[in-house]
């Protein structure tokens, strides 16, 4: 009954009320909204401007150095930016950075995924909590401490592993060892693996914990064992998360400075064997040389830093591609 009496009032009254409605629909008319919009837009623009300014500065300084470089910037094994003529290239640094990070990833990713699965799916709740807590602590150790430990403890204790690798895999050349100090890319890779393990473990753990119960029960109800549940439900669901976690770890490994500088004995050559002392990484090279560098030397280091930046960007882009490629199969649209 009420409905019939209200009906005539239903269409909105035309006239002076209309423009007000229009403004309300667009939002941002109240002072609070306007201020907040201004603040958030300003912050966003500020970040972009800052990034652009940094990029412009680095590009300018780097171009100064590269334009004077008499050697090939990408393939030269020299690093002599103050020489006459200046000759420097990033081949050794790129090789060292990429190889030590690959070693770190190969070691850290499987172990991290294993620990994360143990914490979320195998360990009794209390033990899992304790392990997770200890891993969190590992993430909080400063990298200089890892560096000290690496130089003082890890390097002198690598002989056994190096000897074993030389005995069984030395014939490949990649694992040949002539008995020098273990200040090599392999030791750096192992140390980096330890350093990136906590971040990969923590992120993977959170992802595995979020696997919907119903996906696990689907596998259980088919008669899946615990491992089969992990294979059918947990790992596919967590796949993109584990890739993201690995990329976070890889980012840290690529950019790690002090720990690498303390363990590696740097040299500007590429050895066929990962066990030979020597080599270098972008970040380590910058840290070791920047303080004593001339303006030209600094510019050259900045140029190498930009290459590291581009490598990191490419790696992240590749990871996003991998994640997006099978998006329709991801757990997100379940």
């Amino acid at each position, binding site marked *: 009954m009420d409905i019939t009496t209200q009906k005539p009032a239903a269409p909105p009254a035309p006239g002076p009320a209309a423009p007000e409605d229009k403004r309300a629909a667009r939002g941002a008319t109240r002072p609070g909204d306007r201020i907040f919009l201004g603040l958030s837009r300003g912050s966003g623009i500020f970040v972009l401007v800052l990034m652009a300014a940094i990029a412009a500065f680095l590009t300018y300084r780097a171009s100064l150095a590269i334009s004077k470089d008499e050697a090939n910037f990408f393939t030269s094994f020299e690093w002599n930016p103050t020489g006459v003529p200046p000759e420097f290239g990033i081949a050794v640094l790129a090789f060292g950075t990429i190889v030590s990070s690959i070693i770190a990833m190969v070691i850290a990713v499987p172990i991290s995924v294993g620990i994360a699965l143990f914490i979320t799916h195998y360990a009794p709740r209390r033990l899992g909590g304790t392990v997770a807590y200890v891993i969190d602590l590992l993430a909080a150790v400063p990298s200089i401490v890892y560096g000290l430990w690496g130089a003082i403890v890890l390097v002198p204790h690598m002989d056994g592993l190096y000897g074993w690798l030389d005995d069984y895999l030395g014939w490949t050349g990649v694992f040949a060892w002539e008995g020098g100090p273990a200040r090599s890319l392999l030791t750096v890779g192992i140390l980096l693996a330890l350093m990136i393990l906590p971040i990969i473990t923590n992120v993977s753990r959170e992802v595995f914990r979020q696997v919907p119960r*119903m996906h696990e029960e689907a596998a259980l109800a088919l*008669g899946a064992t615990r491992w089969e549940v992990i294979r059918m*439900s947990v790992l596919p669901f967590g796949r993109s998360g584990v890739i993201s976690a690995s990329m976070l770890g890889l980012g840290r490994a690529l950019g790690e400075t002090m720990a690498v500088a303390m363990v590696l004995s740097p040299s500007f050559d590429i050895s066929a064997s990962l066990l030979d002392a020597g080599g270098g990484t972008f970040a380590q090279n910058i840290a070791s040389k920047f303080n004593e560098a001339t303006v030209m030397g600094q510019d050259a280091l900045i140029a190498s830093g930009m290459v590291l930046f581009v490598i990191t960007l490419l790696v992240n882009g590749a990871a996003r591609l991998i994640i997006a490629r099978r998006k329709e199969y991801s757990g997100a649209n379940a």
Partner: protein
Amino acid sequence: MAKRIDVSGLNAYYGSFLAIEDISMTVEPRSVTAFIGPSGCGKSTFLRTLNRMHEVTPGGRVEGKVMLDDENLYGAGIDPVAVRREVGMVFQRPNPFPTMSVYDNVAAGLRLNGKYKKSQLDDVVEKSLRGANLWNEVKDRLNKPGSGLSGGQQQRLCIARAIAVEPNVLLMDEPCSALDPISTLAIEDLIGELKERFTIVIVTHNMQQAARVSDRTAFFNLAAVGQPGKLIEIDDTERIFSNPSVQATEDYISGRFG
């Protein structure tokens, strides 16, 4: 191969909380038995004791006997994983494996059980999807993700996945509660066909559904919140809905309850 279920003196716990107490019943092969009762009365918990899924919830524990023909599911040396291969289950919310295609979803159970030739798998997948009345809708997109189907189709996909391994018993935990009426009708028709081959137990909140699909109906109730759920009575569906022998059943069915 449909088998008879014979439950006697079954208690199920969550930690120290007794959720269902002293349940005994028999479920005949090639029949549909419906469990009805108010929320929290333990029907789903009881259903999950029939394929040993109850014990995967933390603190879940069961006492008593569940005989599948002449084998006690809770006997010594019985592997719960093997039990679940014999007693299939369909859940309340459709849960196809989101990372798998339609085909892989149906084949998942078989692949767990061992190596099959591609042609064998093809046959079983087609047969199971036909059995779940889904074949005509998905035959052109077997390699598309299962999670891209509609809710009703996903639920039938889950039924196809469950029947692909030829279980002896099929448990359904409110299989239509997340579906629209048309999809519900499709599943109910399917249940009528599946009972030719399987022993079916279905939990439902929808009493018309229980009346439509089941041969026997069991009514569960609990005295109060915090008290264990109990089986009040089990009888032919017709009798439960026309002339139940316990007053509480009649009150519940006619909506006068509590």
